[in-house]
């Protein structure tokens, strides 16, 4: 009898785990099928994935704070991306390249992003409950202004002359701007990525070793404490075992001399992303983080307890916008060419789709959701054209599938949110 109950309990736990993570699980399955169908080499996929994770994670991570502060999915990060691009246009025009150019563009982007974030936040406060639509519209509206400035004002009112960036008729920026690095650089390409690249498997060995040291430290600490630790020593032992497996695999690959052994990772970029993850975690442990959570869970209670709700939401929006601006700069230094009028457009949709795939929702998000989501979303992106080709004989189908994924996942998630809101108890 007792055993049956125990099993029942386990079953229901398993079931609720599945239900909670259903989106993520579906995408893991899709990814695996896609990889099998695509017939791409494993080396290629891994390489692409490293690239895309290091390029996109920062943008996706910028979404977390507004979700926790109850604003929801911040479609307004598009204006952050515009701030980032504006800064890049400035440094490229002034011919400041490489790391110096990169850092300067972070600095230049800051005031723009704060301003844009402030305005967006003000609007969000005026449209409470409709922030997501408002954010979407802000993106379209700002895009109009952006185009007006860079297509028309540049070369007429804004004095910019004589560069390859300007269209031949002297008015407006060209469609694409090269950010190339290298010996004769004209931009910030690989300014961050290129600082230090390390072999993927060395990186994994070092990383796993650090995890192991941390786990051992924790186990020793747990032993000395009397109260019940947050994570049991068993959990840490699992960490150690996983780390050992990673190390073994890495050594195996290195020794075998397969083409995988040539893969490299941009260590500094990953470090920057790690710092941002840490920032997202740590800020929630501060007073302002607690305010974000309070406001996110109940605006009315926050207000009654004396929290300045509007200000808190404003800060959350500004932080998100600034991070998005920097995220876009990191993205572009990896890509190496800027599509002046196109790059920012999809930023919001893609980042939001990614974090949702990772298991976030309109009201719930964390670093894990962002990272897992980025990895899964981009895996699907990498494999879908070729998978489409093998499956339907047409790479275009894969392209359709991508678009379907992005809009589908956002649509479903918004639908679920609305449904949950309406699904008041039936009593």
């Amino acid at each position, binding site marked *: 009898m007792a055993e049956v109950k125990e099993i029942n309990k386990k079953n229901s736990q398993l079931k609720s785990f599945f239900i909670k993570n259903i989106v993520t699980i579906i995408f893991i399955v899709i990814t695996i099928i896609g990889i099998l169908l695509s017939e791409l080499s494993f080396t290629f996929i891994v390489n692409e994935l490293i690239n895309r994770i290091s390029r996109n994670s920062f943008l996706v991570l910028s979404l977390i704070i507004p979700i926790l502060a109850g604003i929801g999915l911040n479609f307004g990060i598009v204006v952050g991306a515009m701030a980032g691009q504006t800064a890049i246009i400035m440094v490229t025009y002034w011919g400041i390249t490489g790391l110096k150019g990169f850092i300067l563009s972070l600095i230049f982007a800051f005031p723009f992003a704060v301003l844009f974030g402030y305005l967006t936040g003000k609007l969000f406060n005026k449209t409470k409950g409709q922030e997501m639509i408002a954010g979407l519209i802000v993106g379209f509206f700002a895009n109009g202004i952006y185009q007006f400035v860079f297509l028309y004002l540049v070369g007429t009112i804004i004095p910019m002359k004589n560069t390859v960036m300007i269209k031949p008729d002297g008015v407006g920026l060209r469609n694409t701007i090269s950010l190339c690095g290298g010996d004769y650089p004209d931009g910030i390409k690989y300014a961050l990525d290129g600082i230090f690249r390390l072999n993927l498997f060395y990186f994994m060995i070092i990383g796993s070793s650090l995890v192991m040291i941390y786990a051992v430290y924790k186990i020793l600490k747990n032993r000395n404490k009397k109260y019940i630790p947050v994570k049991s020593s068993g959990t840490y032992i699992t960490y150690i075992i996983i780390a050992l497996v990673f190390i073994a695999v890495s050594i195996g690959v290195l020794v075998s001399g397969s083409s995988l052994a040539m893969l490299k990772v941009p260590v500094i970029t990953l470090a920057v992303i790690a710092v941002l993850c840490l920032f997202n975690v740590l800020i929630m442990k*501060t007073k302002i983080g607690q305010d974000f959570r309070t406001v996110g869970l109940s605006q009315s209670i926050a207000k009654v307890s004396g929290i300045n709700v509007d200000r808190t939401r404003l800060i959350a929006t500004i932080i998100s916008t600034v991070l998005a601006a920097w995220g876009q700069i990191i993205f572009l230094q990896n890509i190496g060419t800027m599509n002046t009028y196109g790059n920012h457009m999809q930023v919001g949709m893609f980042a939001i789709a990614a974090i949702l795939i990772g298991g976030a929702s309109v009201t719930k998000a964390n670093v894990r959701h962002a990272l897992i989501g980025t990895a899964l979303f981009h895996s699907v992106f990498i494999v879908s054209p070729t998978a489409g080709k093998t499956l339907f004989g047409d790479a275009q189908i894969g392209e359709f599938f991508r678009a379907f994924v992005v809009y589908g996942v956002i649509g479903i998630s918004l639908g679920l949110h609305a449904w949950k809101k309406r699904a008041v*108890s*039936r009593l």
Partner: protein
Amino acid sequence: MNNGYVLQMKDISKEYYGNKVLKGVNLNVKAGEIHCLVGENGAGKSTLMNILFGMDVIHSTGGYEGEILFNEKITEIKSPKKAMELGIGMVHQEFMLIPEFTITENIKLNREITKDNVISKILGDRLRTIDSKRMNDDARSALDRLDMNIDEWVRIVGLPVGHMQFVEIAREIDKTKVKLMVFDEPTAVLTESEADNLLKSMKKLASSGIAILFITHRLDEVISISDNVTILRDGELVKTLVTSESSVGEIAELMVGRKVDILNKEEKNKKQVKREVILELKDFSVHMPGEEVKNINLKIENGEIFGIGGLAGQGKVGIANGIMGLYPSNGELYLKGNKLKLNDTNNSLENGLAFVSEDRREVGLILDSSIELNIIFTALNIQNKFLKKYLFFTLQNSKKIKKHTDEMIKKLDIRCTSSKQNVGKLSGGNQQKVCIARALTQDPDILFVSEPTRGIDIGAKKLVLDLLVELNKELGMTIVMTSSELTELRKISDRIAIISEGKVAGILKPGDSDKKFGLMMSGTKIKELQEEVI
């Protein structure tokens, strides 16, 4: 001028959308005084307190007229923040707790203790780290002062309402520098012993010089604790009395404006008739945090009023919640001999069970919908009532809905402007009546009511209880009533089960002695009891 008043509210008037709910009310409170505020449901008590606390509902609906003096200075209280800065604490009628937060986090809401870190030194105080250890310590000591032995790191979600109320109170107690504390019906959700506990704490607070404004519908509490009492009726000040020169009867009369029958201890002693069993619980357990039910066996008979009583936290609240599938349960349920599926609310509703929850905010009402919709909601969705077929379409039969709702409003004396008014705009007690109306609309075979008279004034209380009896007698409806108030259980029930430590301590008749009830509630088993009686 030094008259010792902490608070003076002068000639306060308030209109909600042209509906005058306060008409020139005066209220004076001295330091160290316990001042009660009483009045029928909808008399304007909460509104007056909301004005005092600078609540948003007041300012977003055109503010108020009149003057507030705090510490003898004219003060404008524009926001709760301002009120708190002045030293006003308030336990709201509706819970102001965030369910996802722990008890500590709720107690320390926006008063978190923080410590410096590298970044906060540069970028400012809002980036200081939360010091959860010290917060937990503070929360612990506040809870201890209220004799609450619940862990401070537990989340609010799933706690029984009685505990939630104490968390609210702990939050106010934890505030230092409070000069005036407002309690808006804190005892409504508490059992008698919990309420006693609270009253004791209030006395302690008052003796330390804090002024206390206390709203309650329990007039015996008014008599036992207050120094003065102010009575409101329909938004008008009726009278302020010195409590020691008054009586329950006088206060009640002033409140309602006519003589009222006070619920007295007259118990009913029906003849015991043998009836069929309609609902049987076998080895039934419910996992409701703080109100666990452990392997109980009960037989509820067709056509009876079955009372469930007991102290808070002993499990009486869990039974109905478990049967309705709101909290996970196991064991067996037999409805009219057929096995009933567990943990399936829809199924329970479809099988003719209806429930008035003790927690109306969480599972009871859709606040931003009309009274009409709230009343017919379940009947419409589960039983397809109030629908009309037009060729291929099924539409709501609005005429029928209106007629039914108006009937309910009249029957339960719901004070509202019309049946289209949003439930969120009703006073607390009137919201409770809407919950009852909804359950009645389902025409259930068995009606579970938990704390049906919570937050309802004495006049309306009689109305609700009479209605339950009427339903039982005239329609033969089986009623299972869970209540913390023994008086009302004994007044209308045929049999009363006392729950203690998650188990049935025994089943008593309403006519049994007070002593028997008291002993059984404190956990004495029926066998020992019988020995005592002999």
